């Protein structure tokens, strides 16, 4: 599609848990500024792949290259620092904290006030806090949660919690955003709004990798689709080519097709 270097490259990645081969020989890459959908039936290894990219588990074999550097075996927090951010399948907010505080924690890697800074309150600390505040407010605006900054995040309705989690992930100013089933549990209207939000995020120059069961959403917003089945990559291409791919239909759409219908 473009001549740019890919933002993320997955090169012949293998991962096993105990005796079970969760992923084998996965290779694909993400172009900067694209939205890529990662699909596959349950147990295909999508979430495992997510956890490998975000550093939760180490890679057994193979390479993951982000912006030209290998990120194999890096800890999750370092990956956030270099620009990979994620959300979780079952929203994982800091529930006792306010909406605003959640986003402020999201900016952890983009602020630097440490123990001494907080105890001695150096002059620059206040400036940093102020900037972080402003950015947090902007993000709330961006995802459409303005006006709810001081609410306790655990008390929000589920749909808003999703939005907040995305906002929190964006707070670290990532280059790559990993969204793990962001539409799960949302109604049709909310899903449509989500689609728009993801496109808006891409417009900000953030590359998006998306795991999603909602086929219509995935097919509509993705530039590129990668299909996994039982730990192996069975197809990739534009939504149209993938939808036409016989292997995919056989392995996935054939069974999951029912799901999209209802």
């Amino acid at each position, binding site marked *: 599609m473009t001549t740019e270097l890919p933002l993320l490259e997955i090169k012949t990645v293998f991962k096993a848990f105990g005796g079970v081969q969760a992923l084998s020989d996965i290779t694909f890459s993400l172009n900067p500024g694209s939205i890529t959908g990662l699909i596959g039936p349950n147990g295909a290894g999508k979430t495992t792949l997510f956890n490998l990219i975000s550093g939760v588990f180490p890679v057994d074999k193979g390479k993951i290259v982000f912006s030209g550097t290998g990120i194999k075996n890096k800890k999750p927090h370092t990956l956030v620092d270099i620009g990979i951010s994620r959300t979780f399948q079952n929203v994982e907010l800091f529930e006792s904290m306010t909406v605003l505080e959640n986003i402020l924690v*999201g900016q952890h890697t983009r602020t630097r006030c440490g123990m001494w800074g907080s105890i001695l309150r150096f002059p620059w600390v206040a400036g940093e*806090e102020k900037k972080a505040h402003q950015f947090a407010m902007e993000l709330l605006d961006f995802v459409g949660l303005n006006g709810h900054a001081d609410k306790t995040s655990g008390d929000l309705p589920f749909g808003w919690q999703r939005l907040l989690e995305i906002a929190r992930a964006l707070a670290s100013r990532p280059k790559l955003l990993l969204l793990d089933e962001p539409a799960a549990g949302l109604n049709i209207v909310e899903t449509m709004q989500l689609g728009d939000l993801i496109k808006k995020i891409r417009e900000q120059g953030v590359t998006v990798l998306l795991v999603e069961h909602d086929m219509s959403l995935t097919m509509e917003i993705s530039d590129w689709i990668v299909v996994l089945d039982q730990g192996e990559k069975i197809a990739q291409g534009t939504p149209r080519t993938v939808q036409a791919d016989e292997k995919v239909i056989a392995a996935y759409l054939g069974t999951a097709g029912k799901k999209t219908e209802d």
Partner: protein
Amino acid sequence: MNNHQTRNRICYAVFSLLIILAGYTIENPYYIQVLTFIGINTLLALGLNMLMGYAGQISLGHAAFFGIGAYGTAILTVHYNLSPWLALPAAIAAAMIVAYIVGIPTLKLSGYYLGMGTLGFGMIVNILFREWSSVTGGASGFIGIPTLELGPVSFSSGRNYFFLVWGFVLTSFIICQRIIDSRIGRALRAIHDGEKAASAVGVDTRKLKLQVFVLSAAFSALAGFLYAHLVFFISPGTFSFIASIRMVTMVVIGGMASIWGSLLGASLLTLLPEWLHAFSEFEMVVYGLILMIVMIFLPRGLTRGLLDIYERANKKNDH
């Protein structure tokens, strides 16, 4: 935010005023001494509260750091004739270094395993206090710890020591409040709410937990220093497993993740035995019952628990 800061400032101003007021109006040295003990216990509870309430990591061996602070200053001032004011940073540094070394492997554990790991550490340190008798005075204890002096001011009299201890308490409160209100404090609470998510938004959870562990060790060591120069005598029993459990109890009864809860918990646990004295034989039974009842009905501690009740009553009144 500004509102919040002003409110905090007012609180601390009132608090300092109260300390000064108490220090000058209370005449009886006994009450001054009780309040001084409360201050020392507050420091213990505060340090542990940072670890338990904010970072969500339990420690059943914190009396070890209390002991390192006390024995540190005792050994340095008596055996090496060091000025207590130089022994203070040295004792605190010793506790922090020990906390750092022990913390690296221990904080990888969680839940009961973390509890047991810290408990074991506390036991080992306590046995060292008892067995290393050439240095620590062994089970009989360490006598002859000097009086604190600063130029012409001697901290032997109750009132001076009261102000010294509560000065440290106030400073520690402000330090903790600042940490809690900062980026670090937010990250700590994030760890408490969900370690996985915290690490996924970029918080180096291991480093931060270790930092707080070291910080809380420093507060405990400071309390140990103050205890040693108040009583002039220390023995291993004061820093035993029971003492660690008492510290945890202060934090939990007072209220986790609440600075003022530490004060309340420390006050209650210092005063409770005084009040229960009337029960004589039944003292232990009543004490155990109180612990259980508070935890069953107000599991978030007295501070939060009472606030919840207050709020519920308010809501009822509103409707």
